[in-house]
């Protein structure tokens, strides 16, 4: 689960991490008052207007503007609030900017990259810093990996003070900035663990000309498995940032991701769902979605699955591929028949059931009143469904 920059900063603040502060505005009528308040509260005459969307690349897309005067701040704030912001991480239509942050402008001396995430290969959290802040850190990782300093954290001890010092030294910091950064790293690690984050990234962390170490921007991602114990984090979820169909699928406990093709897929299990998409593509079709209906494909899951898949108007045919393990295929077949007869469907449906009682299931499908195209193997199913959309 992702959150906005302003929410990430609120979270950092709770853990005593200095941030570039500001005020969030949702309505154009409040812009001027917000700018005046930022000016007085943070004692500044210069501002940064920052679009609050989850996608990265906001600056390049025109969603972050430095404003040397009150007038320019008003102008940029009015332009950015409500715009469709297109970045390399949004869809082609972009994401509507419903909130902006009017932030204090800081005079920056140095920029660093700071992040914590899980290192799957060691099973430990890894704390990474780099002096190459504010730039494309992936390029740094590739061209100059030594410029990224990494420290692995043991679960039982957490980040140790000497490790925080190592990180601060790696950034070449001294004196007050060294002390501030070491403390900030300890706090950031605590924040990461206590909030069950999967990524905590401060990019850039800056040293101001006044000598303060401050988080200028922050991104968080949270472990969805842990949300049950993170009520404050869940409260920050912004459904407007998510695909409405995916939100709807989530309500039905279905795992759905929309794609650009026209062959809808309904499969049990994520791996088989991806495998099914792969074979559709190999047979010359384009999958319209990923949909994992989970273990027990019954009437309700199949019905809800259809509703979700067919809400995408591009879908011209649907492939149902269920490998009945513990669930018997004849039951799944009956569920499909009932769901299809109750819903008024106008696209061809190819059904492939394998596993327990697959033979009985195939007979049920072939003898039912509803129009279904039965297939035996995965390959046959893919060929049949692709034939339907290319015919």
């Amino acid at each position, binding site marked *: 689960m992702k959150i906005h920059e302003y929410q990430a900063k609120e979270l950092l603040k709770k853990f005593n991490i200095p941030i570039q502060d500001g005020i969030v505005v949702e309505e154009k009528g409040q812009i001027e008052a917000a700018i005046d308040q930022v000016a007085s509260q943070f004692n500044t005459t210069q501002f940064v207007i920052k679009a609050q969307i989850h996608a990265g690349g906001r600056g390049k897309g025109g969603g972050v503007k430095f404003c040397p005067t009150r007038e320019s701040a008003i102008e940029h704030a009015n332009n950015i609030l409500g715009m469709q912001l297109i970045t390399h991480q949004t869809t082609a239509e972009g994401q509507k900017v419903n909130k902006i942050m009017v932030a204090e402008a800081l005079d920056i001396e140095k920029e660093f990259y700071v992040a914590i995430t*899980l290192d799957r290969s060691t099973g430990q959290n890894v704390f990474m810093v780099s002096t190459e802040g504010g730039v494309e850190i992936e390029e740094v*990782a590739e061209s100059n990996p030594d410029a990224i300093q990494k420290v692995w954290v043991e*679960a039982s001890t957490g980040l140790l003070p000497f490790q925080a010092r190592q990180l601060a030294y790696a950034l070449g910091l001294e004196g007050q900035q060294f002390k501030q950064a070491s403390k900030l790293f300890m706090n950031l690690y605590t924040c990461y663990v206590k909030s069950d984050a999967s990524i905590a990234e401060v990019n850039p962390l800056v040293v101001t000309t006044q000598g303060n170490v401050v988080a200028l921007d922050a991104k968080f991602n949270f472990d969805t498995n842990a949300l049950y114990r993170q009520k404050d984090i869940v409260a920050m979820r912004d459904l407007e940032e998510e695909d409405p169909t995916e939100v709807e699928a989530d309500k039905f406990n279905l795992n759905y991701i929309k794609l650009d093709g026209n062959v809808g897929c309904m499969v049990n299990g*994520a791996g*088989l769902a991806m495998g099914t998409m792969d074979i559709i593509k190999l047979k010359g079709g384009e999958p319209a979605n990923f949909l994992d209906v989970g273990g027990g494909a019954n009437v309700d899951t199949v019905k809800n699955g259809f509703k979700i898949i067919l809400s995408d108007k591009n879908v011209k045919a649907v492939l149902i591929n269920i490998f009945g393990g513990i669930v018997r295929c004849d039951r799944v077949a009956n569920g499909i028949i009932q769901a299809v007869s109750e819903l008024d469907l106008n696209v061809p449906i190819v059904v492939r059931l394998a596993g*327990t009682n697959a033979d009985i299931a195939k007979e049920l499908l072939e003898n039912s009143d509803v129009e279904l195209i039965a297939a035996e193997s995965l390959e046959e199913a893919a060929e049949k469904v692709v034939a339907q959309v290319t015919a």
Partner: protein
Amino acid sequence: MSILINKDSKIIVQGITGTEGSFHAGQCLDYAGNVVGGVTPGKGGQTALDGRVPVFNTCREARAKVGANVSLIFVPPAFAADAIMEAADAGIELAVCITEGIPVDDMVKVYEYLENKTTRLVGPNCPGLLTPGEAKVGIMPGFIAKPGRIGVISKSGTLTYEAVHQLCAEGMGQSTCVGIGGDPIIGTKMIDLLQLFQEDPDTDAIVMIGEIGGSMEIEAAEYVKAHITKPVVGFIAGQTAPEGRRMGHAGAIVSGADESAAAKMAVMRSCGINVVDSPSEIGKTMKAALAKVAA
């Protein structure tokens, strides 16, 4: 023969009195008869599965009284990490955790806890293991598999069934099938199982099924090149999966590896693995690979 589990395994089920736990414990007992008990704190002294097996309060008690050496875990996500560590503390040799949705931070702690224990963990969030005809420790449907000489390693549940189904259709049974799970932190990785299958005299060839994300398949492929003499057939699910609208850059710069299906498949091919583009080719490709060895 087989790896990790066989007819002599003494299996207990942690969470045996829950809905999922009791259903699958019953299936495992019916399959091979080697489920010897269960653990549910507070229900020690009772019986489960219609009186067929005793219930204990702790794993230590289960190990002492019925000699359990394998534990199958069906404990809810919030308590599953604790259950795994309890099995390890009791000296259970193999803990298989089916539970889906365990917080990653809990697993970080488990991973470290297991470092100086003798217990091997398989999972979490996996379908478990199946040695056809001998033992079932998990939720794989027993009837789809047949005893034989192919080892199966997979990150995915139903895709494993698909592979096993195809192998059987081509007349090839399995020595042991292992679903390792696709969570960020898992106890047993592909490399561990490749080694076990290589050493197992009754396994002739290996099927390895991976997914996009992580770098485990790349490490496994390099291991195959260096250490595995038996034929390996591989598939990576997710060639058509869209690149996620990533958040931040931290994930990509940790491993430095390309985690896409195409990149993994290319490395696997270069390491001598018979990689199939289509998941429907697993069985046929294995048959051809074995015929080549025999020739």
